[in-house]
């Protein structure tokens, strides 16, 4: 049986995701997305992975959500308040695709022998994460640093060069 905190955080994560996509005002959608990411972080806590949970809160809820919020406010328009609704056939297709994929994922796991795994004891902690990052996965960490730097520089270049063109 799932406990009460799990159910509450499940509702926060799933409800936030739905509101993020369906809210009329896109700013509220961005805030709801931050709530959904926070709910997933709480699920990481429940999974005995506090380091990942705190990382998720700092990077996602702290940085990415604020970045999204600023961009939404930069490009927001009044006419989006009455955004053209998608055709109902598209909506039906979307719901059907989503339900089919989620249902098949759930069915695959329920039908397997994984349902018997209920114990969370002896889960790995900070020490193992640190050892992995600083030994076997160290090259990935280096490459990831380069990717982050390149993408941020690329983002700055993209949004700068265009402004200079407009001024000419």
């Amino acid at each position, binding site marked *: 049986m799932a406990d009460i905190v799990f159910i509450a955080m499940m509702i926060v994560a799933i409800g936030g995701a739905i509101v993020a996509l369906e809210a009329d005002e896109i700013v509220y959608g961005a805030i709801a997305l931050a709530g959904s990411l926070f709910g997933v972080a709480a699920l990481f806590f429940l999974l005995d992975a506090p380091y990942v949970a705190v990382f998720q809160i700092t990077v996602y809820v702290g940085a990415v959500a604020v970045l999204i919020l600023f961009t939404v406010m930069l490009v927001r328009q009044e006419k989006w308040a009455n955004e053209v609704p998608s055709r109902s056939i598209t909506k039906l297709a979307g719901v059907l695709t989503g339900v089919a994929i989620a249902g098949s994922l759930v069915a695959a796991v329920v039908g397997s022998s994984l349902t018997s795994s209920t114990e*969370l004891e002896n889960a790995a902690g900070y020490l193992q994460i640190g050892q992995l990052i600083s030994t076997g996965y160290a090259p990935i960490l280096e490459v990831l640093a380069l990717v982050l730097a390149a993408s941020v520089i690329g983002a700055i270049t993209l949004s700068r060069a265009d402004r200079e063109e407009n001024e000419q």
Partner: protein
Amino acid sequence: MNTLTDYVFVSAVLFGIGIYGLVVKRSALRLLFSVEIMINAANLNFVAFSQYLWKDAVGQTVVLFSIALAAAEAAVILAIVVVAYRLHKDVDVSKLKELEG
């Protein structure tokens, strides 16, 4: 006590919501929301399986890398959205047709 199936259920539902958003929405920002939701669903699966079945730190380490990659990807997408808005005053992906073949 929570079982592995509970977490996989939450992850599958989040993934389904992300797929729904990708199919239905046309605003580039909503598509970014969908992708972030799907990345989160995948991360949740990684940590859940790693903690319940293998009990080592590889799943958590991979999720740390995945979160950092998602942050980089969000930065690039948001820059593209800002550029598209400057050029077209709109971020509806069905109207951005410069790269269409």
